[in-house]
């Protein structure tokens, strides 16, 4: 059996056994948030880790999904699935529209453009209070699929666990497809990829659109799960957290973002006991990871055990 399939099985085993170890709904909530972040980070890793393009505005796409769900189901009475799809299409369309001009840029310029985009989305959400409830946010109705309402932490836990496993499997297949090889090629060397017949601009655009779509869908789902949205979901800080999950876990590794998401979601909870020092501790840990484990946890461990992650 291929190593990544073993990884998937191990993760499925952990997710199946975890409910035995989770004492109450507080812990369920943390694991669910880990799973949500893990899926967004997986999508972002396609862009950052595999295609080598940075985005500091991905929370913006997450926010589009969350608010599309909130606004369309509350103000316009849409079905949750319709709203989810509408949000994802809007996020993908925005990404597609901006992809060409954005991806002519590189490195810091690209970081800056995506950062600006994310901040603008967050500002619109904060200022258009008539629809979004402004900085206070708004409530979101629970989600029902085919007449069944998903309710309570346990049901959501199974829902997001399945969602995570499916996403990992999909990403794995995408990376191993000709498309995946093309984006990895353009990461290695754009000119060489172009010479080998890869339409660099088009592939960058597709992967950007794809990861925006991913983020938006997860935004919608998490809005239903939390039952409330605030402009913080599209915040610059969340964009940074997402990038950090990818980098701490390990770029260009399938399980890297999952490990990174688990770690960075749990960390603030663990640090909450530090009474005020949590921001300082979080900052120090970020620096520590970047200095001592620059290629991320999963690739570092994988190299140590003589296998590729």
């Amino acid at each position, binding site marked *: 059996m291929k190593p990544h399939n073993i990884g998937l099985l191990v993760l499925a085993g952990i997710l199946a056994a975890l409910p035995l170890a989770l004492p109450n709904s507080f812990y369920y909530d943390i694991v669910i948030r880990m799973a949500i972040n893990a899926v967004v980070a997986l999508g972002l890793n396609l862009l950052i880790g595999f295609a080598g393009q940075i985005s500091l505005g991905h929370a913006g796409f997450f926010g589009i999904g969350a608010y599309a769900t909130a606004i369309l189901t509350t103000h316009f009475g849409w079905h949750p699935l319709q709203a989810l799809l509408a949000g994802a299409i809007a996020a993908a369309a925005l990404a597609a529209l901006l992809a060409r001009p954005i991806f002519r840029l590189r490195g810091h310029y690209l*970081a800056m453009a995506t*950062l600006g*985009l994310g901040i603008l989305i967050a500002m619109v959400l904060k200022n258009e209070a008539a629809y979004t409830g402004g900085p206070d946010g708004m409530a979101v109705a629970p989600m029902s699929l085919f007449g069944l309402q998903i309710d309570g932490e346990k049901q959501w836990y199974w829902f997001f666990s399945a969602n995570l496993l499916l996403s990992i499997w999909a990403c794995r297949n995408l990376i191993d497809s000709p498309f995946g090889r093309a984006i990895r090629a353009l990461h290695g060397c754009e000119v060489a990829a172009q010479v080998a017949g890869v339409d660099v601009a088009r592939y960058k655009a597709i992967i950007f659109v794809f990861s925006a779509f991913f983020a938006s869908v997860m935004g919608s789902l998490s809005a239903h799960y939390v039952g409330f949205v605030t402009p913080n979901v599209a915040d610059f800080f969340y964009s940074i957290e997402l990038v950090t999950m990818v980098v701490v876990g390990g770029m260009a590794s399938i399980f890297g973002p999952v490990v990174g998401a688990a770690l960075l979601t749990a960390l603030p909870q663990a640090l909450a006991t530090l009474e005020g020092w949590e921001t300082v501790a979080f900052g120090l840990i970020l*620096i520590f990871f970047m200095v001592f484990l620059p290629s991320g946890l999963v690739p570092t461990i994988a190299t140590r055990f003589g296998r590729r992650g």
Partner: protein
Amino acid sequence: MFVQFLLSGLTVGATYALSALGFTLIYSACNVINFAQGEFIMLGGMLTVFFVHSGLPLAIAAILAVIAPVAVGILVERLAIEPARGAGTVNLIIITIGASLVIRGVVQIWLGKGAHVLAPFSGSEPIAIAGATLLPQSLWVLGVAAIMVAALWLFFRHTVVGKAILATSYNALAAQLVGISTRWVLRISFGISAAMGAVAGILLTPITLTSYDVGIMLGLKGFVAAVVGGLGSGLGAVAGGLFVGLVEALAAGYISSAYKDAVPFVLILIFLFFFPRGLFGAKVTDRV
């Protein structure tokens, strides 16, 4: 009204220009975008308030509020940037964000979450100019900013250290070969950059209040100004800062004050899409 917007835009723009110079300096010296730059602005303002409240005269408080951030800047370089030599863009961005979290967190614990005021340096009797009013503090901002820019220019033109920094920014390896300690160049760059930010923060505080979290937005705006001016160009940073301040004030006056903070980010998208080299950026071609 137009003159009024012009004056307030230039005032705020001058502080963006100082911050943008800080970004540009570090970017030229070591190709790092320092996301902690905004925290130096915050430190300048917060520390001045703190020292003034502990009974020191304003001038001494302001000097201390520049020295302390300079020390912090050098420490950041020594403890976080230097050990990560050769790391990728994303890693360096996260390191500077980590540093900014540490600085912000410490100030939040030490000086609290509240907003603080600082009295204007020489009264608040407005001066009438061409039908608009100008606060004396604006003159302080514009005057000190102009002096800082001139001093920086002289520093790079006429001192050995300044020339060493320029040489390193052109070609670090060649600079090393002629005996320049590039490590010290980096530390000095961070120090100067922190000083520029701190001065901007001190000047701005009597106009806008300060608190532990003002650094994020001010830093990002300084960054926008640096990119608008063309990253790596000193003249561009100053022009970019004034330009961003002006457009922001005009948009707040004529379009919508709710979206005032959005202006720099719309500007950056427009600039990156249509003038990716900025106002004064060098023309760069890719090498294969």
